[in-house]
């Protein structure tokens, strides 16, 4: 397959895409298993991430059973509870959200949205998935090793992470570190692809300012991840060496089981710096793709151009840069030099400015739009509300004096679940409803989708709103059971039981979604190529689902930005990016 060569007399400047020798699969194995096609890799990423995500969902049920009805379930003991919270957190943040947004949506959408045939390094892209799968398998294997998975909490703070007394001290922690190291290696391979594809493989006419915001979000998040994940890599390697070889990078001298341990002089604070230098950008690595995707969902389903496109792009870049300067707001109570806290509180509050700009622009895009309350739009709206809620409690926790009493309470748990649990998951679900027709050629069932949305949305609020209140009461996080503390009234226990019941209900409503995914694959209504009448390139492919090489014989040429919805005078309420101006004028003439 040969792309359009550079034509000197055309009025379009040099072909940005040189001739491409496309990889062609020769057998069933190389087409569907060891595939180098970004679309297949995307589906592999998404399925693997969802599978391990289901494990994390089940773990959350077990945790809620214990918290809601302490002492009722004899098969959950304190050690297991710690293991559940650790694995739930780690899986959700890294193996589900990061992998799904960048590996799943990134692989599927980047080449299609920028008008490329595939990623620029397809072989490396394939390796990226297989290394990721290996990381997931290593992680999952910790459930079956002696001692079970680590129970150190998802932050894995030394010294307790590798000392006896913490569950999973034998194998769990070693395999967890190994799995993280593998994940980062795999991600780096994928990340190189996403960045260079956006830089180099855009089709003719696709300038940066014509990119859909989804691509901007995924691109910026990938750049951030490439720079932030090395910090987790360094922390993991050094902690692994502390555990395996007895070095003292992080381990101070201490008494373990009545005996002076072999460690001495290390700095647990150093680990926290490294961990959060990765950990805070990680929040935005998950949030920026969500921001981008939700912008496109809102614009498409409100039939209106995105408000303040330039400002949206600048805000994405600004958030990406600022997020590297706020990490120590996770460490106000760590014992670091206290005045640092005020610097980091300031940067934390500054980051609220570009974030607020984005929220205003989403709302202004909706204003007087032709809003179609279809399932993807419902989830997009759910995201905006949830993100604002979670963001506001972030302002509480970003301030040192407010954070100190709230540290390690359920308030923090409620905050981060709202802002980086529920909110991005809303976007993931909305995006699946939105792009499922492109991936499979069939629509998801609408009634089931609406049921799924309302149970998830209302349920999430019933779970996490009361949790803020529990936190204000002083109910600590990570506790197996609360006991008879005087400051915890009996009503807090009933509230916990209520939250657990809702959490189980919301969890089971996800099974309806899974059923919908499977059922619609065979029985869903045929979608056609562009069911949402959207402008971006992925909806303009000659085939649905897009074939190998995406674009048939010729790459598309882009003539306009991604948001020409309801253009006055145009025949249709959307103008695809690859529609030449002349064709629009003809339509305009016909309309008048």
């Amino acid at each position, binding site marked *: 397959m040969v792309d359009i060569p550079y034509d000197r007399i055309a009025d*379009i400047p040099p072909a*940005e895409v040189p001739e491409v020798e496309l990889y062609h699969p020769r057998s069933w194995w190389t087409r569907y298993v060891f595939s180098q096609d970004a679309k297949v890799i995307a589906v592999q990423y998404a399925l693997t991430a969802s599978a391990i995500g289901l494990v994390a969902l089940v773990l959350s049920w077990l945790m809620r059973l214990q918290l809601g009805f302490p002492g009722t379930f004899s098969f959950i003991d304190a050690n297991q509870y710690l293991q559940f919270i650790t694995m739930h957190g780690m899986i959700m943040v890294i193996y589900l959200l990061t992998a799904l947004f960048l590996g799943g949506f990134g692989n599927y959408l980047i080449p299609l949205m920028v008008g490329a045939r595939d990623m620029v390094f397809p072989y490396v892209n394939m390796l990226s998935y297989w290394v990721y799968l290996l990381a997931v398998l290593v992680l999952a294997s910790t459930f079956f090793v002696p001692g079970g998975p680590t129970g150190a909490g998802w932050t894995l703070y030394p010294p307790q992470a590798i000392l006896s007394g913490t569950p999973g001290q034998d194998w769990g922690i070693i395999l967890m570190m190994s799995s993280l190291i593998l994940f980062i290696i795999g991600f780096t391979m994928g990340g190189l692809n996403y960045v260079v594809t956006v*830089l180099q493989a855009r089709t003719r006419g696709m300038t940066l300012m014509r990119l859909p915001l989804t691509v901007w979000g995924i691109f910026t998040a990938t750049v951030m991840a490439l720079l932030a994940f090395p*910090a987790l890599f*360094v922390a993991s390697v050094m902690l692994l060496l502390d555990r395996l070889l007895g*070095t003292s990078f992080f381990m101070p001298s201490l008494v373990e089981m009545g005996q002076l341990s072999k460690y001495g002089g290390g*700095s647990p604070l150093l680990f926290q710096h490294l961990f959060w230098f990765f950990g805070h950008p990680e929040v935005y690595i998950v949030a920026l793709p969500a921001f981008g995707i939700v912008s496109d969902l809102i614009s498409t389903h409100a039939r209106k151009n995105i408000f303040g496109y330039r400002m949206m792009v600048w805000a994405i870049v600004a958030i990406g840069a600022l997020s590297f300067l706020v990490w120590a707001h996770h460490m106000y109570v760590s014992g670091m030099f206290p005045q640092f806290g005020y610097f980091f509180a300031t940067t934390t509050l500054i980051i609220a400015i570009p974030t607020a700009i984005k929220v205003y622009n989403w709302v202004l895009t909706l204003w007087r739009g032709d809003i179609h309350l279809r399932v993807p739009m419902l989830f997009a709206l759910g995201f905006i509300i949830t993100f604002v809620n979670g963001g506001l409690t972030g302002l509480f926790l970003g301030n040192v004096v407010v954070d100190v009493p709230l540290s390690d309470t359920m308030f923090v748990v409620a905050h981060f679940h709202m802002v980086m649990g529920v909110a991005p998951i809303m976007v993931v679900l909305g995006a699946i409803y939105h792009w499922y027709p492109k991936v499979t050629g069939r629509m998801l069932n609408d009634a089931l989708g609406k049921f799924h949305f309302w149970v998830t949305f209302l349920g999430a609020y019933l779970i996490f709103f009361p949790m803020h209140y529990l936190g204000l009461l002083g109910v600590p996080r990570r506790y197996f059971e609360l006991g008879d503390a005087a400051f915890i009234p009996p009503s807090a226990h009933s509230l916990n039981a209520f939250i657990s019941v809702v959490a189980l209900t919301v969890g089971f409503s996800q099974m309806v979604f899974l059923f919908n995914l499977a059922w619609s694959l065979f029985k869903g209504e045929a979608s056609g190529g562009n069911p949402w009448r959207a402008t971006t390139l992925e909806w303009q492919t000659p085939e649905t689902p897009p074939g190998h090489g995406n674009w048939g014989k010729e790459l598309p040429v882009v003539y306009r930005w991604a948001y*020409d919805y309801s253009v006055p005078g145009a025949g249709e309420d959307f103008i695809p990016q690859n529609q030449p*101006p002349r064709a629009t004028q003809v339509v305009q003439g016909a309309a008048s």
Partner: protein
Amino acid sequence: MSAIILFLAVIALIAGWWLSQQRLTAKPWLEEGPVGQFPGGDAMTWPAAKIGLGVFLAVASALFVLFISAYSMRMNAVDWRALPVPRLLWLNTGVLVLSSVALQWSSVAARRHDAEGVMIGLLAGGASAVIFLAGQLLAWQQLNAAGYFVASNPANSFFYLLTAVHGLHLTGGLVALGRTTAKVWRSSKIADMRLSVELCTIYWHFLLLVWLVVLGLLTGWTDDFVNICRQLLS
């Protein structure tokens, strides 16, 4: 963490410069039509593989700078006892410089379409890199024999860690170099190989630079520099 912040500032400068070339102030909603009417915004003329390597070098640099950040934070603790750097390291450094020079030679030869020169350069570069790695292992053995074990002091731990990470990167480079050499061996068209040879050369120079920085750190040469930076920052 000041080292990594400085590094990120450099990355931010580069990214800011690049973004400033991309017409981020354009109003795309007004710009309908073929892109030729609106200057700027084209992809770079470099081959994708070169940009890919550039991005990878940024990631690898971030990794090393983070190790260095950790090093400079940990070395302030009271239990830090700097270890005597084996003399062998100077010899190893020389070999690594030779390796880099050989690959540069190969790169220049590729530009001149001199197939034999390319091959000699690649083989010499590969061989000296292997010697460097062997030398590093030998240095480890000497330290071990002298009682400087990996866990006995954080300075020792960092020595083994940093040399190992650098060595692993070089080993990865050797895989790429091996593939390039095999390609040159099979093909007579040097023009097709030029990019691969050039990429290997860039990576080798990068690893040499990293090694010199690491060596400066391990021998304590950079201590004064670090102290000056620390005073400036405080």
